[in-house]
């Protein structure tokens, strides 16, 4: 940016918001200048979403003041925020999929004669706004017939309609490909040149550094600092976000690698699967799982990773094959049956199959333990409190409040609670399906560290992740999946790299 702009268009001072059991924002200040792209950064749970929702009127602030163009405003709802000139494009596009593009762009701002909408004029106006964004779509086509990228541009067109002074982009790029991101950024730059203040939130550092002029960093609901982009190199940004130096992350890798002990003349495996398979789910595979070892499962999305985990954990019933747990033939007919043999499975779908949003952290942790004990033997309160307190401390669950509703926690902390749920059952085998998905750097590192430590303590771990680097870093052996079958098993030595795995996936594809 060139000369310092005269006055901020948005000035938020001393903003605090609390949810039951969670202090989401604590005395946070934030300002936004016209004609700049301002990135809001922080880990999951740092308060980014909460701050945005305060600015867009979705949440009401408990204390503090919000000024727009020097005048204090009360934002009791999204309509008031829009009236104040603040428009928002959300991660999951919040438009009406059942209406046309023109109807969505103009909804609430249709051209009218008296009380009646003039559709022809409305459509023409919508087309004008779309044209300004160089968006070549038929205004009469259904919104749902377009890609997410186009839908987001339609949402931006809405902001033009209300002549927004502030445009909030909340994770707009998470489901776009590179070309679409470039297109979005072109639009953002032209809006910026028109003097619009853009608030940009993204997990992608490259994009932050490509588009932003200024960065505000939050951590644990508090303001860490506001910097011009040039004054804040990436390393410093990450350090500011997680509150410790980047070296902490690097340390984990060393640790995981050092624990690699290749069981050549191994002790007896904890679990042996022979020819285990299910029609339409995953083709028969063999696998041995050893105590004290992390087995990584690599493969593309939909390659059968989750299906493998579900067969091993009793969530699905196999059509073929045998499972032996400690050399005793076992039928894993349900997750509960698996649990009683010391096998715990943490699902990839945290929201739908993992947490129970309306229960507290304590209740969420207790679920599996209680299931294992049976319905008629309640866990004594004192014992439960002990267990919960232990895991909250050990996993550094934030906030450390067992009575907080789990849906008010950030994704990373929800994942930690789920880990605690399974660890509380003292499993011998822990199957983790995408435990770090949608989690920020810091929490990710903590979970990885924890998994390593569990294996060192003698637990057998199956670790599934879309991130090959992560699988490589953690596991001692790797199962490679492709097209719903196990195509290879590798010992993770130093010469195994992501390239090796990708090659294995590709090669086996050529052979098939």
């Amino acid at each position, binding site marked *: 940016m060139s000369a310092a702009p005269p006055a901020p268009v948005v000035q938020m001072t001393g903003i605090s918001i609390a949810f039951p059991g969670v202090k989401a924002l604590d005395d946070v200040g934030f300002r936004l200048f016209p004609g700049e792209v301002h990135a809001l950064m922080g880990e999951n749970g740092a308060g980014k979403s909460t701050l945005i929702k305060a600015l*867009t009127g*979705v949440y009401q602030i408990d204390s503090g003041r919000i000024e727009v163009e020097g005048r204090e405003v009360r934002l009791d*709802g*999204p*309509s008031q*925020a*829009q*009236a104040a000139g603040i428009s*928002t494009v*959300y991660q999951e596009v*919040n*438009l*009406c*999929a*059942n*209406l*046309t593009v023109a*109807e969505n762009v103009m*909804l*609430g701002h*249709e051209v*009218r004669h008296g*009380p*009646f*909408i003039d*559709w022809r004029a409305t459509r023409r106006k919508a087309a004008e706004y779309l044209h300004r964004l160089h968006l070549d779509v038929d205004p*009469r*086509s*259904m919104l*749902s*017939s377009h890609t997410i990228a186009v839908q987001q541009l339609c949402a931006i067109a*809405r902001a033009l309609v*209300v002549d927004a002074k502030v445009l909030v982009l909340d994770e707009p790029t998470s489901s776009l490909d590179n070309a679409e991101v470039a297109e979005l950024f072109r639009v953002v730059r032209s809006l910026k040149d028109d003097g619009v203040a853009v608030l940009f939130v993204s997990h992608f550092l490259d994009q932050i550094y490509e588009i932003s002029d200024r960065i505000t960093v939050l951590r644990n609901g508090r303001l860490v600092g506001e910097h011009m982009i040039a004054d804040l190199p990436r390393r410093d940004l990450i350090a500011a976000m997680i509150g410790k130096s980047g070296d902490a992350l690097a340390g984990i890798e060393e640790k995981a690698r050092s624990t690699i002990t290749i069981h050549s003349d191994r002790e007896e495996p904890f679990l042996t699967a022979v020819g285990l398979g299910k029609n339409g789910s995953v083709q028969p595979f063999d696998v041995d799982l050893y105590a004290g070892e992390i087995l990584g499962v690599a493969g593309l999305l939909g390659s059968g990773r989750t299906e493998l985990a579900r067969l091993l954990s009793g969530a699905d019933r196999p059509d073929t094959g045998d499972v032996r747990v400690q050399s005793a033939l076992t039928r894993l007919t349900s997750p509960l049956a698996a649990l009683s043999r010391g096998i715990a499975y943490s699902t990839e779908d945290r929201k739908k199959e993992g947490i129970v949003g309306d229960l507290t952290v304590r209740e969420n942790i207790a679920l599996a333990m209680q299931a294992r004990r049976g319905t008629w033997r309640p866990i004594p309160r004192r014992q439960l409190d002990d267990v919960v307190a232990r895991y909250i401390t050990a996993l550094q669950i934030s906030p450390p409040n067992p009575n907080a509703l789990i849906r008010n926690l950030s994704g990373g902390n929800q994942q930690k609670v789920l880990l605690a749920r399974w660890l509380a059952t003292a499993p011998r085998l822990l199957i983790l399906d995408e435990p770090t998905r949608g989690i920020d750097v810091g929490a990710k590192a903590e979970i990885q560290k924890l998994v390593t430590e569990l294996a060192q303590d003698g637990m057998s771990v199956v670790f599934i992740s879309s991130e090959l680097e992560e699988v490589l870093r953690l596991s001692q052996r790797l199962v490679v999946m492709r097209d719903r079958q196990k195509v290879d098993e590798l010992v993770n030595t130093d010469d195994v790299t992501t390239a090796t795995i990708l090659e294995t996936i590709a090669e086996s594809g050529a052979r098939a």
Partner: protein
Amino acid sequence: MSTDEMVRAERPAATVVHRARRALSGFDRRFLPVLGTILTLMIMLGVGQERYSTERVDFISMKLLSNLLVDNSYLLVLAVGMTFVILTGGIDLSVGAVVALVGLSIAEMFSAGLPIVVVLPVAVLIGTTCGLLIGVMVQVFDIQPFIASLAVMFLARGLANVISVNSLKIDDDGFSALAAWSLKFGEGRELWRINASIVVALSVLLIAFLVLHYTRFGRSVYGLGAGDGGAAVNLMGLRPARTRVWVYVISGTCAGIAGVLFALYTKSGFNLTGIGMELDAIAAVVIGGTLLSGGVGFVLGTGAGVLVYGLIQVLIAREGLDSWWTRVFIGVVLLAFVVLQRVLAVRRR
């Protein structure tokens, strides 16, 4: 490789399909369910024309249309109100009971000597109040529409029983004159008429059409049906709360008007009137191409749905079958339409 050849052979076919789909996309897909309704209507009219036309009188005639409207005007008004509610993804089970309550209230008010200019507005307002009650429960107390309207259904039916458990005859000169009034067209066997009920029902339909398609309120009704309990509309800066209360008020008001029309039709009030009538209205709305999940549908389609419903009754009567068969056929048509909606919804994904 043979697969390559197959791919090549398939390609022209694929482009044809693609082209057809593009041609279709110019045409609004939202009309597809309504097209089904109109097709059904035409088939039924064709069957009727084929089987019941005599040399002197065609089956398809203004007389048929006028009779259909006279017999189903109350249902049309109910279904129009129900369309608003279903478009938002809600449901209103109270309307049948409200019709009974309104009918008995009219009879009671007339016997108390109130003039017609007071009785009819009050009767409609009874329906409005019931709707408002549901709307407030749904919006303010976040109660599911099914439960909220079920509660009001019991309330209205209960109050109807409190007024009288016997059929009350409506005895008022003005009311009788209104019921008997009609414009006559044609001669002899071709004679057809427009009565007060038809005028009211068609006016309601027309107003609903204008409101739904040509006002901002109508747009937010559709927006509420986009799912997530109106989250999208809320985040777009509109006012979903007000809209949601209003659709139930509209449905209740329509139920009040339908109660008046039904009283005009039967010239009496009875506490067992309209049991299951709310389900007839819902059936007509669904047959008319409105998705029960909300967000998609047309009020004119609802009009066609009511005609299909009425025509089934006419055809059954003309066939000389027991009237029970009406229900069977409505069930079959309803099933077919629900499956059609499902297929369209799956293809859209």
